């Protein structure tokens, strides 16, 4: 029987990848490698159909998790970044602009930059933490006659700032714009409802808050618009036609799928459902509140946000020690067995907004498996530096 991997360090890098993985995820991956070894969607023999069934079950689970009616609109990708590239380059292939927030990750900014010819095709709205009307006003101001989409993260991967996606989605639809959400830090932690949040495209990783393995992500579509493809190839369907199929998910799933990763992701989604995303989020935010309160009593610590709460923040906390580069602090923590990420976290926009572009920040992010004892140890080590 597979057990959870024993913790070899105090792991606070869950915003990058959750670890350890639940034992059900480990089992599901091993089971897939053992009994779903055939190519899904290509043949009619028993093992191939069983693999296809396992994959379809994950589509159903994901659709239900994000309140989407049609499981065929759940597209498996390599990761969240691939999903964002498909949507961004598809929506803006024939022109137009996008509005983004000033906290975006390079997974959004680099694709936008790559398709910008001569001058940027994006406008940047300022997020005012905890002030939805002001944030909305900024998004509204950025909308131009040729704007086609609002693309924004749900929660900042650096500072945990939560964006009011429901209100931004309504704003987008009032202006006839597509609404694209980068759920990298929120899927599995904060509630996401494709319909109530007016989301046309949701891009999520499998390996973070959904507790799946690396190498699998999802593009969840809630729009009839047929996006152009980034990659074409074999889909196991309509093989006599040279044109890529129009139907989802085949349109965006050329090549053999990552069956083991998808089965692991399915087990991860079930793990989150069983434990309750709300309960997991509450556990994580309570740990972050504890750490915040202790660190705020330490003169040498610089904090950048208000005390974590689930209304305005996701359970991600950035800090620095006065007079230290963030990477120096991370190295000291690593030498004491604590795993954190420091630097710019692939999100220079967010660091520019918070004035931390020169130092970066040290980021702490817990998971369901983080304990208060872990938090106490981290605080003790930070206080001793």
């Amino acid at each position: 029987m597979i057990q959870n991997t024993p913790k070899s360090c105090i792991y606070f890098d869950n915003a990058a990848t959750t670890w350890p993985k639940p034992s059900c995820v480990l089992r599901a991956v091993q089971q897939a490698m053992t009994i779903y070894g055939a190519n899904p969607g290509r043949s009619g023999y028993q093992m191939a159909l069983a693999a296809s069934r396992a994959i379809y079950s994950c589509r159903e689970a994901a659709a239900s998790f994000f309140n989407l009616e049609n499981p065929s609109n759940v597209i498996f990708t390599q990761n969240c970044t691939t999903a964002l590239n498909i949507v961004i380059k598809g929506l803006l292939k024939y022109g137009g602009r996008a509005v983004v927030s000033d906290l975006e990750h390079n997974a959004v900014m680099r694709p936008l930059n790559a398709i910008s010819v001569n001058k940027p095709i994006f406008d940047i709205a300022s997020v005012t933490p905890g002030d939805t009307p002001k944030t909305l006003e900024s998004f509204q101001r950025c909308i131009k006659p040729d704007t086609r989409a609002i693309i924004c993260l749900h929660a900042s991967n650096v500072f945990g700032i939560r964006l009011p996606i429901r209100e931004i989605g309504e704003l987008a639809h009032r202006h006839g714009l597509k609404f694209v959400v980068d759920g990298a830090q929120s899927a599995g932690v904060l509630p996401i409802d494709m319909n109530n949040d007016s989301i046309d495209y949701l891009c999520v990783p499998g390996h973070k808050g959904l507790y799946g393995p690396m190498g699998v992500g999802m593009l969840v579509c809630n729009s009839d618009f047929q996006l152009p493809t980034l990659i074409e190839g074999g889909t196991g369907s309509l093989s006599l036609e040279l044109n890529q199929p129009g139907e989802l998910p085949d349109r965006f799933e050329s090549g053999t799928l990552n069956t083991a990763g998808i089965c692991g992701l399915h087990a991860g989604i079930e793990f989150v459902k069983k434990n309750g995303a709300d309960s997991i989020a509450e556990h994580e935010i309570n740990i972050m509140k504890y750490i915040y309160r202790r660190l705020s009593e330490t003169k040498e610590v610089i904090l950048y946000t208000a005390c974590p709460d689930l209304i305005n923040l996701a359970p991600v906390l950035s800090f620095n020690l006065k007079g230290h580069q963030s990477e120096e602090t991370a190295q000291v923590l690593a030498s004491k067995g604590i795993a954190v990420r420091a630097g710019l976290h692939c999100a220079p926009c967010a660091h520019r907004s918070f004035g931390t572009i020169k130092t970066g920040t040290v980021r702490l992010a817990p998971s369901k498996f983080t304990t208060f004892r872990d938090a106490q140890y981290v605080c003790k080590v930070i206080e001793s530096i």
Partner: protein
Amino acid sequence: MSSLCFYVSSITNAMRGKSILEQNGIRAFIIRSSDETVQNGCGYCLLVTSEYELAERLLRSTGMRIRDKQIKNDGP
């Protein structure tokens, strides 16, 4: 035993169709399509042995594209 075969283009459509039919009490089987010209290449069939009209109505109500349908006399 005869059955009705609904040709759909992809395994996902076949899985989705089977799920919808079974939620409505209609047993369905998935097989690989044997008629490649109907499918413009590869594809799958959803076989049902009863309630043909209801099955078709249910499948079409989801917006799923049925590429063809044929009665088979050798059953699933």
